[in-house]
């Protein structure tokens, strides 16, 4: 703690304890606790309390108040808990019985204030913070506090009840791990006293007839097995396993929904997953007995588990694939059905029942599809997924999508029910398209690719497609187009690919003219994505450029919606790559002309009233530059110069930042093209030629008018810009003055120049408060002046200054203490009035 803070703290404590003062804002109290948490973490010694007696006094005076405010009392409880987290401090506070009085029977928990949820929350959090050592454990267990925690598990406030549950878990772990002298074993269950109390409570609750008690204990066990992987957890489990099993087998208590989570957490614990037999038997029967909705999360969790036994794995996969299997079965002719599942393992009656009910069908499908997507994305890298019948799964997804848009109305009873329920169901469409996109990464689905595009195109074409669904359909289409290209390489199915691409562009043309901005925007994003993934494919480029898409995209540069204009800029920028930047670009009509496009984008950059399109332009320019699309050094210099002139006065700091990025890339490229080393210590070919090129590069930079913008940015009110500009200038300075080179050029430079650079340095020191920038007399285009500026201005000092976080004052504890003190005595409350 700094001296300033320790001087302020007593006054702050006094103010907080003063009941006449209006309550401090909760955020201040929270931040104060954050600070104490940090202090005690780095220095757990008792010095904090000894050096700041005001803290103990504060707690004492709060205890003496007949009717403290609930928020300050809650703060006190939490503060005391944080302070008592170290054993020394605990003992120190206990000298005056402060902790007993706060957390014991006669404390707040027996007062009228206990009714206030914030006080109960403060109590639980306080206890939780100090629960790091045995004395704290004893204070609670022997002082009757543990019963309070048991009760709080069922608190009306969810914040309190979940904190109480987690607290019991941590107490149990603490007790077993600090109080046992010999390892706990199955034969000799010699639990330490506190652990015994908690375990007995768990056992009693599980045996009780109260559903809420059972639920609380199951939740506690779930948390425990999820966070503690010690061998003793198995001993505890053996005591209760029978009871848990009975919840699964008998329907007397409605606890099944919690069992899936419990078993999953256990399966992830090495204690149980390495065990043989009984645990996995229980898991298997859970997969069989729980409803498909309850078993789904368990199944997906198990499939992600590396050590899951094969038979359990198959069972889990069956749970996930069962609904898909039913769909396929319902939609196929009896003889042509080749299912997802072996008929011997599938028992479709329950699932069919759920699918044929309107209330459960969509939710079961959405859940299953989401789980499949989760699973596929987990194994995306591996490209294959053991045991998964990819082609059949793809077929089932396609079937769902066709049921949803009315393209399929099967004759079977379940099939016709499904088509009635699912028609226009956006929820299912969204989830199915997500899985479809994921499936493109797996091998083994390729035979269906033709009919797959029929399904996707139907979605892209249909006017009924909801905008979110359309976006997902675009994403899936893009991924499958990439797959299609890979396939046509190997299969030479050019014609087929060409047809699909033609259809896609036809539909895209229509969508680009949609009245709904969301659709136009998603269409443009889709176009950009396609170009990014497929630009090296000839037939893609041909199809795109021969379609109307490029023209329509250019039209959208004038869209009324700024989001769309921005996406159009990005798309046009990428179109340029294939239209005329690529060496093998096909010759097209003169409407696609490099200069025209650049001029259009440049115009948007200087005139568009909104930030998004301007930001998009600068990003595209950066991309063009980095891809070497801006021509020779001379042309590039002029291009950069034009852009910089436009962006340096932009109102949007992100556009200005883009300008700086462009400069950075340009400098980098210039050095490269002139054959100069990137870093000062890189080897140089010849000192003489190098020096000539150095001066050439400096001249190029000056001609491009970079320096005026760079130096001006150092004083920008948006600090990020100053930092970036300073970094670039530092790099340039290090480049032109390699280590050991004298920086003092005073001898060779004219006096007025020296004078103007000194003046510039003074201006820069004022930072964002500088007036009348640029300083009179500085010639930012004069290489000599700029060389002097780079050599003499202390950029390192400036950089350090700029790198101080702009909110370091805001975050400092001293500022917080001052703010709390400043509000003391303000009679008039400023009403909460927010934006």
């Amino acid at each position, binding site marked *: 703690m700094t001296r300033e803070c320790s001087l302020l703290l007593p006054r702050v404590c006094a103010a907080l304890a003063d009941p006449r003062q209006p309550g401090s804002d909760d955020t201040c109290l929270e*931040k104060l606790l954050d600070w104490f948490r940090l202090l005690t973490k780095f220095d757990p010694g008792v010095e904090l309390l000894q050096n700041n007696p005001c803290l103990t006094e504060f707690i004492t005076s709060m205890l003496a108040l007949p009717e403290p405010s609930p928020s300050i009392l809650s703060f006190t409880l939490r503060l005391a808990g944080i302070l008592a987290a170290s054993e020394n401090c605990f003992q120190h506070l206990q000298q005056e019985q402060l902790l007993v009085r706060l957390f014991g029977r006669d404390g707040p928990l027996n007062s009228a204030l206990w009714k206030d949820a914030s006080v109960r929350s403060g109590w639980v959090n306080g206890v939780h913070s100090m629960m790091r050592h045995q004395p704290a454990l004893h204070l609670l267990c022997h002082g009757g506090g543990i019963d309070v925690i048991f009760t709080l598990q069922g608190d009306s406030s969810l914040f309190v009840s979940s904190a109480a549950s987690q607290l019991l878990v941590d107490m149990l772990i603490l007790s077993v791990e600090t109080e046992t002298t010999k390892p706990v074993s199955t034969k000799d269950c010699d639990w330490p006293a506190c652990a015994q109390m908690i375990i007995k409570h768990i056992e009693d609750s599980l045996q009780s007839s109260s559903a809420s008690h059972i639920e609380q204990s199951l939740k506690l066990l779930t948390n425990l097995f999820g966070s503690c992987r010690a061998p003793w957890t198995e001993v505890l489990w053996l005591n209760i396993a029978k009871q848990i099993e009975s919840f699964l087998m008998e329907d007397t208590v409605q606890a099944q929904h919690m069992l899936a989570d419990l078993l999953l957490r256990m399966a992830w614990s090495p204690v149980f997953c390495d065990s043989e037999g009984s645990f996995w038997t229980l898991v298997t029967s859970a997969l069989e007995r729980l409803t498909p909705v309850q078993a789904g999360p368990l199944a997906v969790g198990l499939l992600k588990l590396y050590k899951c036994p094969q038979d359990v794995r198959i069972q889990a996969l069956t749970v996930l694939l069962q609904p898909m299997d039913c769909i396929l079965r319902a939609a196929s002719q009896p003889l042509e059905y080749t299912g997802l599942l072996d008929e011997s393992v599938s028992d479709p009656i329950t699932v069919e029942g759920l699918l044929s009910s309107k209330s459960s069908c969509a939710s079961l499908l959405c859940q299953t599809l989401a789980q499949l997507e989760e699973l596929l994305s987990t194994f995306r890298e591996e490209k294959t997924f053991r045991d998964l019948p990819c082609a059949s799964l793809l077929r089932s997804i396609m079937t769902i999508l066709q049921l949803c848009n009315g393209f399929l109305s099967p004759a079977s009873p379940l099939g016709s029910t499904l088509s009635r329920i699912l028609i226009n169901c956006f*929820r299912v469409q969204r989830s199915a398209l997500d899985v479809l996109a994921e499936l493109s990464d797996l091998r083994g689905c390729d035979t269906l690719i033709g009919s797959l595009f029929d399904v996707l195109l139907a979605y892209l074409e249909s006017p009924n497609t909801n905008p979110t669904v359309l976006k997902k359909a675009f994403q899936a289409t893009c991924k499958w187009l990439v797959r299609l290209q890979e396939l046509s390489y190997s299969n030479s199915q050019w014609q087929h690919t060409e047809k699909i691409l033609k259809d896609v562009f036809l539909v895209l043309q229509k969508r680009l003219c949609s009245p709904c901005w969301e659709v136009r925007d998603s269409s443009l994003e889709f176009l950009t994505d396609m170009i990014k993934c497929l630009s090296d494919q000839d037939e893609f480029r041909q199809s795109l450029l021969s379609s109307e898409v490029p023209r329509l995209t250019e039209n959208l540069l004038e869209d009324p919606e700024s989001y769309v204009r921005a996406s159009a800029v990005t798309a046009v920028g990428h179109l340029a790559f294939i239209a005329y930047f690529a060496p093998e670009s096909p010759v097209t009509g003169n409407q696609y002309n490099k200069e025209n496009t650049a001029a259009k984008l440049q115009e948007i950059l200087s005139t568009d009233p909104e930030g998004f399109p301007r930001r998009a332009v600068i990003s595209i320019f950066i991309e063009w530059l980095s891809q070497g699309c801006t021509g020779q050094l001379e042309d590039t210099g002029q291009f950069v110069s034009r852009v910089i002139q436009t962006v340096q006065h932009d109102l949007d700091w992100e556009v200005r930042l883009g300008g700086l990025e462009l400069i950075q890339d340009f400098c980098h490229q210039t050095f490269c093209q002139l054959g100069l080393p990137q870093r000062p210590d890189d080897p140089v070919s010849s000192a003489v030629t190098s020096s000539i090129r150095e001066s050439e590069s400096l001249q190029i930079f000056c001609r491009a008018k970079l320096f005026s913008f760079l130096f001006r940015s150092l004083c920008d009110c948006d600090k990020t810009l100053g930092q970036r500009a300073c970094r670039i200038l530092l790099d340039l300075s290090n480049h032109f003055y390699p280590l050991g080179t004298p920086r003092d050029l005073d001898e060779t430079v004219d006096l007025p120049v020296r004078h103007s650079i000194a003046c510039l340095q003074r201006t820069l020191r004022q930072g964002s408060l500088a007036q009348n920038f640029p300083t009179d007399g500085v010639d930012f285009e004069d290489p000599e002046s700029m060389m002097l500026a780079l050599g003499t201005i202390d950029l390192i000092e400036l950089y350090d200054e700029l790198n101080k976080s702009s909110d370091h004052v*805001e975050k400092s504890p001293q*500022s*917080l203490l001052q703010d709390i003190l400043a509000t003391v005595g303000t009679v008039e409350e400023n009403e*909460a*009035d*927010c934006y």
Partner: protein
Amino acid sequence: SVFCWGAGAGQDVGRSCILVSIAGKNVMLDCGMHMGYNDDRRFPDFSYITQNGRLTDFLDCVIISHFHLDHCGALPYFSEMVGYDGPIYMTHPTKAICPILLEDYRKITVDKKGEINFFTSQMIKDCMKKVVAVHLHQTVQVDEELEIKAYYAGHVLGAAMFQIKVGCESVVYTGDYNMTPDRHLGAAWIDKCRPDLLISESTYATTIRDSKRCRERDFLKKVHETVERGGKVLIPVFALGRAQELCILLETFWERMNLKAPIYFSTGLTEKANHYYKLFITWTNQKIRKTFVQRNMFEFKHIKAFDRAFADNPGPMVVFATPGMLHAGQSLQIFKKWAGNEKNMVIMPGYCVQGTVGHKILSGQRKLEMEGRQILEVKMQVEYMSFSAHADAKGIMQLIRQAEPRNVLLVHGEAKKMEFLKQKIEQEFHVNCYMPANGETTTIFTNPSIPVDISLGLLKRETAIGLLPDVKKPQLMHGTLIMKDNSFRLVSPEQALKELGLAEHQLRFTCRVHIQDPRKEHETVLRVYNHLKGVLKDYSVQHLPDGSITVESILIQATAHSEDQGTKVLLVSWTYQDEELGSYLTSLLKKGLPPSTS
């Protein structure tokens, strides 16, 4: 049930987020952020909604009441980072303006160092694409059962109250609202929709405030005085909302007083903001709509765009600059330049979080530590002026009177201070009023009347036996209730069997009666037969050749007790139709047989 994450007590602001479960549907009302934190505490902890399972599957929809960040600030986080993929509803102006504010806040946030876990521009856009915009008073069908409807709420442009209805149960959520019209917006209005629950904000329920006119007069006086003595006035604002109201105020005042000092609005946001005010003119109040024909109130004559170089110009001026809490960017830069001159003034029209320069100067601090340990001495005048539009206790009562809810739930207020209002509501309207703490779930029981369709066949049958329908006399009607796809129908049993393709089964009730009789079984049967014949004169009692007795559908058989030959067991069974007779007969037999006459 209703669950609120909510903000803290005192003057804490933020994180309006309520989860309502109504008739099996789950709806999230608002998704706000807390601007006082830089870590994950700024967003509601959504893990409380569902421990396992996806939010998209759990929630049926999200509704945003208006564009203030404490009501929508966590939305991109929720939809793009937590992964909610379902529908989001808000009014058209809110959909248009929300991204501007989110973008504004994102830019300020990422400008600072150490900010992680924050959404990007792309995320804001992707989130807005999921939004379905609604019109006022348009009933929007979220799915087949759930419908929502927006009502005008005043407060800010596009603010709405929402009615959420499932079947015959409904909830109204007010968001922030204002029952008195102000300079550019009208007063909130709702029809007598009699919801089961009204969830009302109560920010100003316990605050007594000067009339808004007084505050406005005070504001104009202060600005005028400063400008007159050659000083500069800085008004830090966020891009939208308060700023427009103050612009109208100053514009008309400048016009009336023929003032010449320039008024500037910084960062180019004003055009876009004003553009939306023009676009959504129907959402403003009547006066603005009327004058719109002659002159658009939002086309300002005196207010010009600000260039950063203007800050150093000599002479008086008024500048609106963002952000509103003086914690970064242009407003802070101008403040630093002007703070040293006592002729100047800064007017803070809104809430500032702890740590910001705005918060510090409002709490009276005059020596501020800036970056690089420099001390900035604040000599300029500092004024706080709240113009926010919330309903006060009177307004809340007025809304309850309008909507006539069956229960009221107050959010956004301090329990202790609110006790008075709660009592008043309960006394005046005879309804329950709840004030749950954050994290507490309130459950309200409704008595839904469930509509049931009756088949024509059944109705005809009832009238055929002479029971004509009469509105005043409720009738008891027997039939079979079929529940299918959340609808109920009462049909005749025959029709039910036919529809469901089921076969009829006869249900027989059986009962064993023990009788002390040492005689042979057939003799006991004969005694029973004679007894029944004597008692049940109007019924046909038969003694069958197999030794059993029948009375209508009732069948009686006798056997000897396996262990005690002196006891005979009579097995009595009857169908549902003869339930009454069966029970009577059993009780008769249980009393024993009359002494034998033979």
